[in-house]
């Protein structure tokens, strides 16, 4: 009796895996989500409450769901109200190592290719793996190391950009030249990058600059000419940790870093508080950052039309200084600019938004829109067609997505 029952269950199990992808495909064509059990059950809690997201050109919301051993990818066609079954990215279990300042990344290109970047501990603590899918997440390429010195150097704080042709840029903090500079102090690393535009081949690592503050995430964006622009907290003379812009020039050489912001934050420390950048279609770079400098303290917004040579002044102070405002993000869509940041009242973390209709000249009132208890990721602003969305994940409430209106 027991044996027959088990056989029947096994047959049902096999049929499930044969039929499930077909059913899912059929439902996709009608824009509906099939009510399927997860293919891989990752449980309900993402590692440290951190979930990465991106929109595909067709409006599908993709999310990367990390656990302590695996990376999963899922999609939603109803703006996050429900998600598909889970697709596993890494075939072998790994020790996934992420934190709020160093989250995994998912990016979907115009062609629909899904790119995934995540961190795991290997020979050296924290290095990055890259994988992609060309079949809507059903299969992923074998994850490859991005760093060519992964066994001996830390590799973290990555950014991934996908340009209009599908060329992928990776940027990261690298310790291969050490973490100390005799003139600048401790916690000083190099900024590296590589590109990926073919199915095969080694990712050739190239240094952009030294003098990068090790523990503050570097921000990147594509300019209207499709070339990357970087905003980084650098360690400057006398150990001042202020922000500089670097861009890829038309001759494909990197510009020298231009100190765009002068806060005079002289500190030999790990602030764990990186900036953000978004560039509008007329080439204005919108910048947000955190500082505890001599000139100002807190989070701020400014913009520049010439990549840091001239910057709007004075910077716009954001947030309630009694609520530890931090980790701001910025998104420019046409003439509109959206800002989001987090505040903490001692019990809960709140997300506050503000927007401009005139490229950062004037601003709406600030508005608190989301709250959550417990550990949280940093807020993220993402674009879908002409719309702005706030995405935020936390241990307390999971993934929250909010369309930002322009009231």
């Amino acid at each position, binding site marked *: 009796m027991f044996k027959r029952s088990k056989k029947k269950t096994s047959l049902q199990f096999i049929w499930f895996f044969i039929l499930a992808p077909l059913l899912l495909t059929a439902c996709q064509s009608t824009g509906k989500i099939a009510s399927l059990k997860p293919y891989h059950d990752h449980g309900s809690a993402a590692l*440290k409450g951190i979930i990465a997201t991106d929109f595909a050109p067709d409006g599908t919301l993709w999310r990367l769901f990390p656990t302590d051993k695996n990376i999963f990818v899922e999609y939603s066609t109803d703006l996050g109200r429900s998600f598909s079954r889970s697709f596993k990215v890494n075939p072998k279990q790994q020790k996934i190592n992420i934190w709020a300042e160093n989250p995994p990344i998912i990016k979907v290109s115009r062609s629909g290719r899904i790119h995934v970047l995540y961190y795991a501990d290997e020979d050296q*603590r924290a290095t990055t793996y890259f994988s992609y899918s060309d079949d809507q997440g059903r299969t992923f390429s074998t994850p490859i190391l991005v760093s060519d010195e992964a066994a001996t150097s830390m590799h973290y704080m990555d950014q991934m950009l996908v340009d209009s042709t599908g060329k992928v840029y990776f940027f990261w903090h690298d310790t291969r030249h050490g*973490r*100390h500079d005799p003139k600048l*102090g*401790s*916690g*000083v690393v190099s900024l590296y990058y590589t590109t990926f535009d073919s199915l095969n081949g080694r990712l050739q690592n190239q240094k952009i600059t030294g003098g990068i503050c*090790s*523990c503050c995430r570097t921000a990147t964006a594509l300019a209207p000419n499709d070339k990357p622009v970087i905003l980084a907290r650098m360690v400057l003379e006398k150990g001042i940790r202020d922000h500089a812009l670097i861009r890829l020039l038309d001759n494909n050489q990197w510009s020298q870093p231009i100190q765009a912001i002068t806060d005079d934050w002289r*500190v*030999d*420390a*790990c*602030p*764990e*508080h990186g900036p953000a950048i978004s560039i509008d279609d007329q080439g204005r770079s919108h910048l947000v950052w*955190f500082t*505890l400098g001599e000139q100002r303290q807190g989070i701020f917004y400014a913009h520049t039309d010439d990549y840091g040579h001239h910057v709007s002044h004075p910077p716009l102070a954001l947030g309630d200084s009694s609520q*530890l405002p*931090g980790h701001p993000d910025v998104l420019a869509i046409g003439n509109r600019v959206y800002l989001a940041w987090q505040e*903490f009242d*001692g*019990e809960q*973390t709140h997300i506050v938004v503000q927007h401009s209709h005139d490229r950062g000249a004037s601003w709406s009132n600030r508005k608190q829109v989301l709250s959550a*208890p*417990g*550990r949280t990721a940093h807020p993220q602003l993402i674009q879908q067609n002409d719309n702005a969305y706030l995405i935020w994940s936390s*241990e307390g409430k999971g993934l929250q997505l909010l369309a930002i209106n322009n009231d």
Partner: protein
Amino acid sequence: MFKFLSTTLLLFFTVVVSANDVNEPKSLRLGSYQELVAKHDAKPLVVVFWSITCASCLKEMATIKEIHLEQPGLPIVMVSIDDNAEAPAVLATLQDKGLSDLESWVFAESNAQRLRYEIDSNWYGEIPRLYFFDADHKRRGISGKISKADWLELLAS
């Protein structure tokens, strides 16, 4: 002669310190910090918040060791803001830096921000973060690695 004596003294203290029992990091939860501080009531105290991944913190440890050897009666408490699961790595780092005999703690709340807020509602989380308490337990917070001269000045003030 003075140089010889101080070197001998330093070697002596190093041997004594290495022979001491190792202090396993304790779990810092909500309320632990207040207990930690109260335990050292009416005495000068230094509390150092650090992380195993913070280069500035690791560099600062050489200065802390010097101060500890010169002022063994001064309580210096090391609090790692790393996840509690990293306690073995925290201890290994303290042993490597010759500081494992100091009182040691590691963050044990999943919401580190809430724990930080309870310690100091003006602290954004940058490390190293040092708190110097005088005998009346008036507290002064400093962010970033500081020199030995700064340490001595802060201890004297």
